[in-house]
């Protein structure tokens, strides 16, 4: 119950916290910015994944990437030639030749 005609701040003084907005905590020492090292293989796989997900060339599940590339070339959709070179140079690697969802059954 407040004192008669008194504010609570008469009893408890207002103490403002020190303004710390302008003061930042000390920053850690700056180190060299790290460039994430992506191997060439990962870059290739990323490019192939983009090719898989491009809707212009139709569905990708159930056929190999080379088959899909050839279908796109047949219908005049102009698929990038680098993809074909990538696929032809890595014929033995299923991660290259089969689509993104190769591990999932029909």
């Amino acid at each position, binding site marked *: 119950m407040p004192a008669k005609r008194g504010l609570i701040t008469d009893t408890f003084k207002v103490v403002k916290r020190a303004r710390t907005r302008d003061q930042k905590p000390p920053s850690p020492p700056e180190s060299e910015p790290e460039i994430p090292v992506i191997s060439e293989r990962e870059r290739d796989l990323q490019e192939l994944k983009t090719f898989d997900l491009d*809707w*212009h060339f*139709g*569905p990708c*599940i*159930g*056929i190999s990437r080379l*088959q899909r590339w*050839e*279908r796109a070339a*047949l*219908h005049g*959709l102009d698929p990038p030639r680098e993809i074909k070179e990538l696929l032809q140079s890595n014929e033995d690697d299923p991660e290259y030749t089969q689509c993104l969802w190769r591990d999932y059954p*029909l």
Partner: protein
Amino acid sequence: MFSDTVVQKESTLLGPPGPAEPVFERETLSYTSCCDRFQLGERSFNRQYAHIYAARLIQMRGVLEQRAQKMWGGPIPIRKLGDLKIGEQCVIVGTVFKHMELQPSILREISEEHNLLPQPPRAKYISQSDELILEDELQRIRLEGSIDTAMFVTGTVIAVKGAERNDGKFTVEDFCLSDLPEQPPRQRLESNRFVLLASGFSLGGTSADSMLGLQLLVDMVTGHLGDQGEQSSMASISRILLAGNLLSRNTQNKDSNKAKYLTKKTQAGSVEAVRLLDELLVQLVASVPVDVMPGQYDPTNYTLPQQPLHRCMFPLSNPYPTLQLVTNPYQACVDGVRFLGTSGQNICDIVKYSSMDDHLEVLERTLRQRHLAPTAPDTLGCYPFYQSDPFIVDVCPHVYFSGNAPCYQSKRITGPEGQDVLLVTIPEFSSTQTACLINLRTLECEQIRFSSFSTEDNEETEMNGNGLCCL
């Protein structure tokens, strides 16, 4: 008319045999079979049908966009479904999907919560509540407005003009089909040459009514009927095409519920029927080239494109090079005249899922849509193609036919660029005893009926002594 080609010599039938037997040469025509696109090499069924629909849309989109430009003019933009703005008049191109309540659905059948019995087969699966939906590569939108839902079937690729409404449906003002493709010019022929088309022999069935008609047909074509005038005119028939259903429906063994010990020693009905067919064919191939197409009840695969019947089934006719076993959608170039046609499964399927009943009308519509079997993966069995859709008609034929129709019909249609096509629905021989004759020089078609008891009066021609009625 074929009967006009009968050279009226004096009758040679009722007279003593002459010193020398005249021999009538049958002309051999140049023939190239273009059935390669329907031949399946190695078959892999590890694919979904999305590929064939995507290939269909990719192949037809260019053509439809051109037609739409020509029909509705430049200023109306062609949009993809993802770029539609509400209220803007535009043109969209896509595949039609018809949502039908009565369409048999396997999921509904096996769903236990509905407790439904399997639906009995109906003649037509359309109803008033059907809806048309247009799908493009990424989205789909419902179509309403001035478009006749009952006339379309799933799988047709069309272009529609209209605007999207606030509630997400597309109001159609007009639609356009891809119409006839380009047609290569046809060389003029000098003499009358005929091709005989027949289908639906239904051998091995329970009733043998059509055997007399069949034997009459064979005898007529091989020149064993009539006097010398008629025999010489038969020599102008240069090719025979049998469009499917050579075996009867009864030869299909449906008794899978019978115990194994009851069916062990019984022979399949089709064995005897194929033997009958072989005996019939050997008489024909000895004298004229024959193309044999498989049909719905023939011993080959069920899905379209049906592969040719195997040569080992015809030991008697096999040695003859005139026997050509061909695929079900059939394409060939006979003496410069392009033939394209099927055994009728595609037309019957469209009749079941649309309001059209007339086989000829459906045939014309499939040609104007440039697709042999639009219902193909949806309600008609189809091989899962992935690279391209082989049922798209990219070159316009001169003769377009379908077999096993309920009656004979033929029509000549013209295309927007001056294409001239003869449409023929070949009747089922077992019920109508009718075959068709196409004149390659004039592209006219007429029917020829082999009934032993004709109900109409025989006032047509003079060939009535054998019970042969030529119309």
